[in-house]
């Protein structure tokens, strides 16, 4: 390099040797310089950056390295302006990521957590994509100018070629590409080949188009970037939800496998197997989160043991004992605690003796005059007697005597006084009896007052044990609940919730509802019912369409079982494992609590067996929640939808002369009309009112029979729904079988032989248990009406469509205006 510079300098020297060696003369005679022998200046090191998919990774790596180096130079005070600019970009990214990470903590589901980062990523992507797609490419297409071309200058700083309109390094445009060729750009402008200063015109064109596009970029990015970010997130959310559901379900299923292994117990395990089980148990029944409470309870019990305890103390113990449990359970536990810590003990100390002495003195002196007691009885004897008694009984801690010993002391004190009085010859016999009675009364009164609840060692031990049992219950329940929550709960991103979304989306899709129909139907449930009926009647007319309709919906419904039960694993049904887990946890806890004086608490958690249902217990509410309220009611809604479709198909077949109802044409017409209405829209209240058939008993009976109980099913439905794929588990019924079962159940539960409206609560044809006949059970079985199901789905669809349409329109306007503006750009001034 040094040689090059020296050669260059020498050559320059030779070139200008004919020129007088003063600056003035040099400039004066500049035109006379013979430059033929001069060397060309060295080529600059600057170059245009190739930005394409192939070079992107390398450029990314280079940029990352440059930023890291800039940071190091920035901290040591050596970074230049360009490097400091890069650190600003770095700050933006760090800030954005910290926001995403924080907002993630506010989100409950994996999908929403991931969306926070995707949102930030989409924002950065939108910032990069918008100027490229909406400005750079169209400008290049129309004007032949790439105004966002980047270059690296002599100092290695990467910049946009045209960002400073007063300094565009045109010398780097060496015509390697058409957009870098001034000649080509002049051609595109229509400048004649022989035009003077042709290249200068092209340069001015580049400058002008660049200034205009850079300005337009600044004006549009504020709208475009957020809109693009929103739309990208909107598009990603669906597929991401499916992915996160799969990942989460796999994770939960693995946990369920561990629960199943834990349920087998450790009996018969030895050595390594036993160690493995211990490890497994520590995961499934993780007590760590509850260690703090357990310690607090132990501390409280230690501090109160052997002492008289108040109601407040019992509340404090109960609070720690039942932390995390519902109010009802806490009340039950307090009931047990209060029983255990009854005020049936006495505290005997010096104060007690004084109180007895004072009470006797007060009574006798009050009757026979001051000083009388002292004249007939030495109260010191009381003290000696009590001390002897306590010594003989091992001086119990804090002077606490149980009920028996307390009575013994009380009686012995009475005897002491009686003996003392009877030996006193100065007292008349008649008075002796009176005095003895009065003194005994006084003693009894003091002992009655001294009754107190005392936390004994035994009671403290029992409470401590109960606390441990309850913590263990919570630990196991926590593991099970995390799985049941994800599988069935009424919350975002659960298996049941997502499946409901899939089924209803498929329903909307299969009904081919136009935007106009959607707009009308979403305003009321009645309009939705009308639309649904009309659509379903049309579909039912065509066997092929009908079969496709029910089959596609049933396929989605069947996925619910598959996702809930995980049948492909070849292991036990996952939901059964969870149900067994709940039963095991509740039963074991109840059994352990029964062994302690916490029988009511035991019943509250696992007992109360009424007609095979654990009414009122935690076990009952947990099982009822997942089995009946969530899974069964959703499945009942699905069956109702399919049964409704089948009924519509049967009605259509009847119209074309196939199949039959009652055989009476007039009655059949009425049955079909009413049946459609009931299936489409009737809630449990309508069943109680017998679907407004008050004055026609036989019609009502026929209606219930043909709508629910007959077991009839269209052949088309059978063909479409008797699929093995719907069985999920071997031995489980097909979708067609399930529909019939559901319909008969509802018919039996809600229909009645007794046509008595005063009774209102119908009695089933079959004998259901009382637990199965509660209003809640009926509500769950009748489930969601198809029109309500569609109505809510349409509203959701309308909302998301509206949002999407509004922002897509806004985005399209911004994009359209930006694209159109290109046609006004680049026009050269006439002069």
């Amino acid at each position, binding site marked *: 390099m040094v040689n090059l510079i020296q050669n260059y300098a020498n050559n320059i020297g030779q070139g200008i040797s004919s020129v007088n060696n003063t600056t003035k003369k040099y400039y004066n005679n500049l035109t006379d310089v013979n430059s033929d022998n001069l060397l060309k200046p060295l080529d600059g090191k600057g170059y245009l950056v190739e930005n394409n998919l192939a070079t992107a990774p390398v450029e990314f790596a280079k940029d990352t390295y440059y930023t890291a180096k800039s940071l190091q130079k920035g901290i040591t005070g050596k970074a*230049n302006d360009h490097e400091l600019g890069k650190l600003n970009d770095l700050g933006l990214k760090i800030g954005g990521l910290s926001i995403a990470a924080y907002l993630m903590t506010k989100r409950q589901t994996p999908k929403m957590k991931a969306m926070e980062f995707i949102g930030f990523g989409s924002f950065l992507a939108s910032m990069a994509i918008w100027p490229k797609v909406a400005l750079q490419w169209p400008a290049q297409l129309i004007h032949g100018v790439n105004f966002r071309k980047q270059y690296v200058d002599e100092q290695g700083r990467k910049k946009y070629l045209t960002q400073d*309109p007063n300094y565009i390094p045109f010398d780097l445009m060496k015509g390697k590409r058409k957009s870098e060729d001034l000649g080509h750009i002049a051609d595109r402008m229509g400048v004649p080949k022989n035009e003077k200063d042709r290249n200068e015109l092209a340069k001015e064109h580049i400058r002008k188009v660049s200034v205009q596009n850079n*300005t337009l970029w600044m004006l549009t*990015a504020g709208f475009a970037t957020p809109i693009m970010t929103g739309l990208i997130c909107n598009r990603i959310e669906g597929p991401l939800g499916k992915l996160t559901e799969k990942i989460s379900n796999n994770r939960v299923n693995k946990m369920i496998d561990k629960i199943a292994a834990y349920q087998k117990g450790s009996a018969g395990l030895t050595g390594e197997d036993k160690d493995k089980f211990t490890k497994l148990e520590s995961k499934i029944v993780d007590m760590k989160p509850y260690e703090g409470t357990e310690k607090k309870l132990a501390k409280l019990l230690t501090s109160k043991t052997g002492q008289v305890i108040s109601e407040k103390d019992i509340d404090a113990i109960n609070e720690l004992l039942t932390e995390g449990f519902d109010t009802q359970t806490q009340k039950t536990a307090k009931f047990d605690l209060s029983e255990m810590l009854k005020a049936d003990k006495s505290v005997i100390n010096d104060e007690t003796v004084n109180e007895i002495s004072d009470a006797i003195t007060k009574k006798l002196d009050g009757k026979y005059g001051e000083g009388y007691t002292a004249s007939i009885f030495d109260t010191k004897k009381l003290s000696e007697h009590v001390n002897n008694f306590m010594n003989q009984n091992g001086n119990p801690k804090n002077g606490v005597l149980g009920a028996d010993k307390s009575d013994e002391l009380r009686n012995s004190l009475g005897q002491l006084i009686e003996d003392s009085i009877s030996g006193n010859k100065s007292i008349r016999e008649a008075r002796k009896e009176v005095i003895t009675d009065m003194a005994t009364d006084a003693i009894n009164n003091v002992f009655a007052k001294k009754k107190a609840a005392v936390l004994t060692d035994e009671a403290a031990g029992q409470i401590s044990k109960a606390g441990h049992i309850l913590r263990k219950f919570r630990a196991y329940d926590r593991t099970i609940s995390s799985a049941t929550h994800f599988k069935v709960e009424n919350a975002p991103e659960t298996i049941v919730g997502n499946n409901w979304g899939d089924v209803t989306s498929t329903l909307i899709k299969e009904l081919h509802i136009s935007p106009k129909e959607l707009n009308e139907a979403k305003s009321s449930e009645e309009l939705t019912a009308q639309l649904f009926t009309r659509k379903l009647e049309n579909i039912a007319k065509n066997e092929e369409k009908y079969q496709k309709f029910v089959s596609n919906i049933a396929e989605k419904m069947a996925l619910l079982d598959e996702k809930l039960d995980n049948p492909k694993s070849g292991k036990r049904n996952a939901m059964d494992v969870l149900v067994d887990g709940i039963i095991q946890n509740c039963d074991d806890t109840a059994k352990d609590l029964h062994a302690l004086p916490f029988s009511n608490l035991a019943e509250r958690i696992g007992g109360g067996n009424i007609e095979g249902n654990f009414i009122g217990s935690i076990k009952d509410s947990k099982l009822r929640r997942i089995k009946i309220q969530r899974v069964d009611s959703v499945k009942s809604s699905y069956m109702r939808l399919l049964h409704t479709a089948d009924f519509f198909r049967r009605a259509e077949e009847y119209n074309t002369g196939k199949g039959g109802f009652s055989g009476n044409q007039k009655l059949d017409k009425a049955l079909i009309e009413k049946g459609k209405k009931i299936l489409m829209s009737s809630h449990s209240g309508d069943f109680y009112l017998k679907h407004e058939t008050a004055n026609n008993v036989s019609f009502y009976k026929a209606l219930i029979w043909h709508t629910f109980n007959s077991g009839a099913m269209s052949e088309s439905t059978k063909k479409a729904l008797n699929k093995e794929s719907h069985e999920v588990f071997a031995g489980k019924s097909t979708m067609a079988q399930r529909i019939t079962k559901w319909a008969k159940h509802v018919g039996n539960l809600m229909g009645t032989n007794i046509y008595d409206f005063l009774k209102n609560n119908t009695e089933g044809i079959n004998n259901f248990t009382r637990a199965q006949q509660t209003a809640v059970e009926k509500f769950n079985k009748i489930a969601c009406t198809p029109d309500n199901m569609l109505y809510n789905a349409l509203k959701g669809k309308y909302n998301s469509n509206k949002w999407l349409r509004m922002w897509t329109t806004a985005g399209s306007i911004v994009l359209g205006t930006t694209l159109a503006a290109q046609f006004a750009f680049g026009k050269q001034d006439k002069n």
Partner: protein
Amino acid sequence: MGIDTSNANTTIALTPKSATCPPYNHVHIPAEHIPDETTILPNNLNTRARRSFQKVTSAFTEYPAKGLKGDKKSTFYEFLTMGNVPYILGSLTFMGLFNGAPSWFPNVNKKGARHWGNRMALGVLFYGLAKNLSKSLVTVPVKMATGIDTEMPYQKVSYTIPDRKDAAPEPVYEQHKVFESRDFPRYDILYNMKEGEPRNYYFDRIAQKNGLGKNLEASDGEVKPLIKDVISRSSTAKSLSTYAWGGIGVMLAVQPAWTNFFKALSKKSWKKFIPNNNENKFINIVDKGINTSKNLWRITQSFGRNLVKASKELYNGPATAKGFNKHAGKIFLGFAAALSAFGAINTIYGAKTYGGRKITIDSKKKVQVD
């Protein structure tokens, strides 16, 4: 958003010092006769407000008008100043996006979605506020310790070549900071800063304050590299910490406490004024004014109250949460505070130790140029 503008002169002309254009109506007057009106401005709230106002108004009016025409006089400064446009429009669009959906939600979902949308919209506002205000966490300690005000504003006045022969040169006003560029700080306007003081008054003070010595022969030459060091370090600190503080703004805005503020802000909570027919118009107008003031005071109080509450919520985390979810607020607060503190300390350290690191040219040492 858009391009990086933080290290650039993103400000725009204040009203000219003298409203009238200098009397250069004759184009034959040589350019060197035009005085340099570039002046340092006081670094106070008034200047900041006026500069921001003019920057924003020009960015939305004058500069786009020139830019869209492809004006020959469009400059890089104008392009950078227009960087404010996407920031402001983007913030408003984001607010619209966050709040746009709940209008069509069923009532049961509307409430929750609206609360979150409102909070996110507030977050956009807090982001900008926190980002700007947090600069002071670096610049104030640095100014106190080194005497260098890295935010020192100045107004640059230049005259453009007239479009027509008979036209007067038009003044162009640009708002800059003396130390906005590390490569080209405006040392030239730091000479003769104070009347009656030596030419190098400013540099003398900086040299003395940073331990380079008193009565230096050429304090400007000694201090200039130190200033560059301070610009580089403080700019790094600002770039990294202000965005983190902007994030804290968003985190603060999403706390549940703000629900109460939005309730206080709602139309429902606005205590309506019912004119008293028995009173005259003037009294009613006064009463209406009092009623409005009371409502505004109520909203302000609610804001203050909930700001404190939200800050506590951010710091303490949700009561039921554990681990990162519980302590995320503390962690990010600590992170932002650490960035500011480290940035300020590093800048001050750089300035204070500069004397010991000064580069002296060793005539015996070989220097290779490549």
